[in-house]
């Protein structure tokens, strides 16, 4: 069918192929999402369960990486202090595009129960752009798995060729 359209020589041909390529690339991307380990507080413990045998996110192709340079997305799990926020930004900047962020737990969503603390950053989205927020204190591994699935949905619907981020990703 493709070949016949091509023979006809209409302009639609290219469009047709691009959309398929998008799907193909996105299929590859969404099923090999590697995440940067960034456990900060009690949520970090739950993040370990997320990678463990019961939740087993590796069935979705998500593998923990200890280096930002090999990571596709970052899970910010736990209480982010101002001191750590600068490090978080540094790690985020080191990740290759395209990159995503999952904010895990109330603390990294908005500061959580430590929001009134003098040293606690009021949400990781003050520092780096966030794609998926997972609520809970802490979220169960199932909830985080759902967060990952939402991220996969996001990636699936993304026009890969035009995917760009502003160079300076600071929301603050």
């Amino acid at each position, binding site marked *: 069918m493709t070949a016949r359209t091509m023979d006809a020589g209409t302009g639609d041909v290219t469009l047709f192929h691009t959309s398929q390529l998008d799907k193909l690339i996105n299929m590859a991307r969404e099923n090999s999402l590697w995440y940067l380990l960034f456990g900060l507080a009690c949520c970090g413990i739950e993040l370990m369960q997320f990678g463990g045998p019961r939740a087993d996110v590796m069935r979705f192709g998500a593998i923990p990486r200890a280096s930002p340079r090999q990571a596709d997305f970052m899970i910010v799990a736990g209480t982010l202090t*101002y*001191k750590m*926020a*600068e490090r978080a930004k540094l790690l985020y900047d080191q990740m290759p595009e395209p990159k995503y962020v999952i904010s895990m737990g109330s603390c990294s969503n*908005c*500061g959580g129960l430590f*929001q009134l603390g*003098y*040293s606690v*950053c*009021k*949400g990781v989205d*003050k*520092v780096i752009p966030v794609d998926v927020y997972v609520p809970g204190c802490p979220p169960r591994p199932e909830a985080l798995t759902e967060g990952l699935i939402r991220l996969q949905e996001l990636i699936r619907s993304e026009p890969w060729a035009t995917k760009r981020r502003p160079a300076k990703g600071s929301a*603050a």
Partner: protein
Amino acid sequence: MTTTEIHDRLKARFGDDVGPLSEPKIDAFAVVTRERIVEVCTFLRDEPGLELDFLEDLTALDWPKNNQIEVVYHLLSYRHRHSIVLKVQLDRAAPSISTVEGVWKTANWFEREVYDLFGVTFAGHPDLRRIMLPDDWIGHPLRKDYQETGGYHGFSNVRENPLVELKRLDDVRRAEAAKAAGGVDGPAKA
């Protein structure tokens, strides 16, 4: 040995530089003068029969009304299973005291913590830097009159209240509904 007996021996050695033992509490304490704290600590560590070889905790309290900062020493002896608490009262405006880092090594980080959060300077400390907050932090947060400076390095310290935004959207929707119900001239005006 009971805390009272330890206190008696301290009294016998240092006289008026060691205050009376507080009434029995979980941890009865004695107030020591600022000048002799290192001597008292060395004595307590080395004296046969006392040998308080472990500094369990070193912390501080802020009393703005009395214009005082109290530094608290929790001492424990592993060998004799007894303990005592010492307190030193410092001037709140410029709190300063000699370090006991030479007596118990563990005091190093405790004193850095007290310096970080209360601003007490420990004279003779080998490495008196902030330990938990960033080096360029302003102020000492556990002081009762500490004021936040408003964010850090450009990170805002304000979180918008989502309920306020939801209310705003609600108001807009209600206004639109009222306008639609109000008559035909609504859209024309807009």
